[in-house]
């Protein structure tokens, strides 16, 4: 308990950590309580009001269908965060399982996993995601699956490296000498000790995943209309860039601010945990 509360206060007292935590909290609240916060529905069109300037009634103006941009950005936070967080959670869970098994048991399984990881590692995530979406077709669910597979290699690799180092620790040997089986050793000793760097890497990857989701949305491969997605909103804004530049500016700002906040928060956590070396080594 003391260790955890100590960590939290360390992160929040760091200026970057504190500010980014507040920003993230705002984004999360927007995502969770979108229907309560947004002044209008995200899909009500009013073509008469298309491309309106920002004003007191439409804080961020309206898009080419006359939909309130501010409301759509609020709902967009919901899409971005849920896709990124779900995808990365799946990726972390699956990656940790595969990585732990490969690192602990070694042998043929380990060689196959390492080869697969090295292979995917050599492509950028966006390319892997594009290939996967080309196969399974566009949409929110396929975006989620594509992102989680694109980041799988990273967590597999990190967990495998951690487990391989940890399994030679004397305390692992000692519990084995007292009769503990593989399951006990992996779940009670290896994974908990390997968890911290993986969690931090997962946090930073969530920022990247938001950008990846926006990119796929921008190409029209992610969320399908009328579901609001920051990337798709920017994409539709490109046509109006000279008459209504706010349509592309505000979703872009939303992406930038959210991702910067996630990265700064992640940095503050890394600093507080003092684990930069462990992340770099693997």
């Amino acid at each position, binding site marked *: 308990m003391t260790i955890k509360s100590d960590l939290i206060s360390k992160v929040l007292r760091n200026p970057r950590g504190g500010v980014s935590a507040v920003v993230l909290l705002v984004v999360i609240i927007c995502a969770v309580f979108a229907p309560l916060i947004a002044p209008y529905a995200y899909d009500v069109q009013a073509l008469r009001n298309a491309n309106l300037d920002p004003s007191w009634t439409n804080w961020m103006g309206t898009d080419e269908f006359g939909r309130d941009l501010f409301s759509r950005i609020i709902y967009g936070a919901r899409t971005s965060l849920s896709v990124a967080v779900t995808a990365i959670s799946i990726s972390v869970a699956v990656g940790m399982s595969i990585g732990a098994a490969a690192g602990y048991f070694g042998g043929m399984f380990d060689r196959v996993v390492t080869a697969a990881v090295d292979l995917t590692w050599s492509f950028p995530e966006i390319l892997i995601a594009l290939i996967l979406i080309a196969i399974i077709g566009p949409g929110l669910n396929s975006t989620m699956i594509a992102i989680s597979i694109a980041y799988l290699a990273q967590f597999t690799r990190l967990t495998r490296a951690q487990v391989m180092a940890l399994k030679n620790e004397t305390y692992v040997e000692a519990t084995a000498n007292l*009769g503990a089986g593989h399951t006990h050793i992996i779940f009670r000793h290896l994974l908990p000790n390997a968890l911290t760097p993986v969690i931090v890497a997962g946090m930073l990857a969530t920022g990247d995943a938001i950008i990846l989701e926006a990119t796929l949305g921008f190409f029209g491969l992610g969320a399908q209309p009328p579901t609001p997605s920051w990337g798709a909103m920017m994409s539709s804004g490109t046509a109006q860039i000279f008459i209504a530049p706010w349509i592309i500016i505000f979703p872009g700002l939303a992406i930038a601010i959210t991702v910067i906040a996630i990265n700064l928060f992640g940095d503050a956590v890394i600093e507080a945990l003092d684990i930069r070396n462990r992340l770099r080594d693997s």
Partner: protein
Amino acid sequence: MALLTVDGIRVAIGSLTPLDGVSFTLDKGQILGVVGESGSGKSLTAMSVMGLLPLIGGRVVSGAIRFDGIDLVGLAEPKYRALRGRRIALISQNPMTSLDPIIRIGAQIDQVAMLHLGLGAEAAKARSIDLMCQLRIPEAETIHASYPHQLSGGMKQRIVIAMALAADPDLIVADEPTTALDVTIQAQIIQIMVDLVRERGLALMLITHDMGVVAQACDRVVVLYAGRVAEANSVEAIFADPQHPYTRELIRCIPRHGQAPGSLKGIPGAVPSVMDYPQGCRFHPRCEAALPLCGTSVPVFERKTSGFAACHASEAVHA
């Protein structure tokens, strides 16, 4: 019948034979010291008893290890696992790293009892705290909820001992349990272990290179040299009348109170590598009493005027 009988085991790792005929027996309530320099095969003997040789690619090629009527050589791993911790427990060399840094002390002791005795969390905790009190750990309740980094080395070693005792084993193998500790703590830990053996009727196999520890704690001693037993006897007899020159050298190495500065003794030379064991008696290149015979013929381990030894220079007694 003895609780543990090790009968002429030879251990091979690849094409090497680092243990070549080691025998001894250990009864309940007895402390057996296994002594020798680094490289003499002490830890390998412990690993053979614990069934851990496969970890380093070794195996017992001949001889037998019997524990309470169970033949341990060739015992299947799942059965061995049920034995480890439950009936035979190992106390490892380094207490500093033998505890998981992110799990509370108490939980680590509890889990042994929960695993082997099927106790619930509450019962296991009560048992652990009781055990910690017996090991003279102050404020057991507080320590039970602490993390390893909050404890000193001596305290951690007591926790490691508590983990070994948690499932009430019959035999404890302690592989240099005090090497990493300073001498005052060392004496305390050894005393705790001696008391445990006396109170609970445990059998303790104490591996050490320190004849001082042997004198303090053990009932019987087996001296190993280069993978063979050099001498075996009761602790009093071995100090009073050592038969093997190697044993004499080991005893001579014990630092004495009032010894002149700079006069600390060592044994010249080093234990030969397993790659090139000398012919005949493996100790003869370093032996003061070596005879011409020693370089050619392997001495038989036989009854001497006091105890048993394998040495040409010491007279055998034929019953």
